[in-house]
């Protein structure tokens, strides 16, 4: 396992996009969050603003950067045929998946930590964003879970383009689709089920009653999705011809 881990780390390290994507995650997340807090003015006292969530607006873009990084890990191997060499070198395939997941999680946690903390600090310039552990820590975990979810998805569909398409759909189309149903009960139900919509509850600091899920419960839903996806990926990877 340690050899496979080291091997996957070497792969990640020597892919030209990795460093740029991690940098992109930090810049995009902080940048968008900073813009959102800068242009928002709250004139009257009770404008129902959640400053923490507002400062974390950039995560909406950051999650896609993370997903691209994760999807590349498998997608590129499939598009180039490299996967055969990988699996010939490591016939116990679940270790490949586990190693990829581990080497992905480390850098993503680190970059996400910088991005999220930076967003909160940047947001404090314009809004009274409180320093709270739950949304900050939770959002970092959220980004890591999105990365793992995307990784599993890429292993399942074996194509970077298809996988990123699904992640884009879940991140951007799904919430709109849920809202478009119009019926509040259905909106709530759909928002509770969706991996991204449920997980994003962690960014809210408002009254949990108004949320689809309590923050950590929402993140739990995303964690379940991620676990299910990785498990499916492991089974398929083991069963399928490479």
């Amino acid at each position, binding site marked *: 396992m*340690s*050899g*496979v881990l*080291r*091997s*996957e*780390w*070497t*792969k990640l390290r*020597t*892919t*030209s*996009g990795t460093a740029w994507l991690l940098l992109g995650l930090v810049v995009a997340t902080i940048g968008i969050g900073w813009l959102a807090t800068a242009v928002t003015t709250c004139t009257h006292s009770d404008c129902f603003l959640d400053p923490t969530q507002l400062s974390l607006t950039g995560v909406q873009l950051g999650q896609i950067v993370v997903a691209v990084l994760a999807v590349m890990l498998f997608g*590129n*191997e499939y598009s*180039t*045929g*490299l*996967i*055969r*060499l*990988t*699996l*010939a*070198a*490591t*016939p*116990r395939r679940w270790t490949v998946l586990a190693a990829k997941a581990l080497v992905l999680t480390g850098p993503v946690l680190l970059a996400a930590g910088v991005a999220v903390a930076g967003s909160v600090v940047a947001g404090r310039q314009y809004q009274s964003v409180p320093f709270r552990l739950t949304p900050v820590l939770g959002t970092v975990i959220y980004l890591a879970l999105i990365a793992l979810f995307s990784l599993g998805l890429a292993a399942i569909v074996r194509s970077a383009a298809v996988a990123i398409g699904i992640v884009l759909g879940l991140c951007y189309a799904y919430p709109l689709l849920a809202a478009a149903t119009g019926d509040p009960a259905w909106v709530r139900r759909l928002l509770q089920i969706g991996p991204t919509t449920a997980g994003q509850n962690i960014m809210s600091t408002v009254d949990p009653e108004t949320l689809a899920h309590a923050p950590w419960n929402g993140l739990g839903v995303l964690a379940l999705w991620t676990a299910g996806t990785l498990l499916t990926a492991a089974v398929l990877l083991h069963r399928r*011809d*490479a």
Partner: protein
Amino acid sequence: MTDKMIEVNGLRKRFGGHLALDGMTFGVHSGRITGFVGPNGAGKSTTMRVILGLDRAESGTALVGGVPYRSLKRPLTHVGSLLDAGALQPSRTARDHLLWLAHSQGLGRNRVEEVLEQAGLSAVARRRAGGFSLGMRQRLGIAAALLGDPWALLLDEPFNGMDPEGIVWMRGFLRSLAGQGRAVLVSSHLMGELQGTADHVVIVGRGRVIADSSVAGLLARASSGLVSLRTSSPEAAAVLTGAGASVREAEDGTLTVTGLTAEQIVSALSARGIPFAEVSAHRATLEQAYMDLTRDAVEFRAAEVSR
């Protein structure tokens, strides 16, 4: 090295309605180069993927050194393989490509430098593999296959895209590997590429083995037939006919004989004191032998014509 071998026994595999492998059975012995030949779609690559544990056969076994590939702990130290030289991350350098592979087998940087040297790639090790020509990619693939110093090598179409100089290098390189006692399986859809390289050939068509023999034996079988000689004696034809051969006479005094081997002809004519010169058996090329054997197995070419 001990006499370990790759054994393929009764592999069957179906892709949709198409039977890709239909009882494929053969063995690859150490110390020699085994050519694995057949038309496109005969099941060569699929067999190699099954040996490497990448694809699963519906029935039959493929063992390397007596165990399934997927049970090997550091498989590249047992079997090195080159399936698709294009399978590279274009942005990664040749050295980094070998480095991650080495790490997966618990091997270090030194081994990477060694195989780069062996494959003649040391000068370009820092270049991005995406910019490599097909020939250089084949060399990089060979380097990757040698990384674990394996006792067996599986090479799928290693001559593809190589220039003549590269083909000569590759042939010599494969010979030296076999000379070190390794088992080498080299697939090709062109028999000519293997002439003078392979010791043994496994000819396949439609997912099964058509012929499994030494190159010498195969050539002998295909050559059995024509012997030509020149003689000024008019009795020669009668003598040979009497010995059981059929003889065709050309105007310049050349006889084309079938039914006797060159040795039999020489002894028959010498016994009668008939003078002759230039006895030559028509040695068939491997290509001819192969075409004879695979004529009815060439399914794709026929299908293409009828379309």
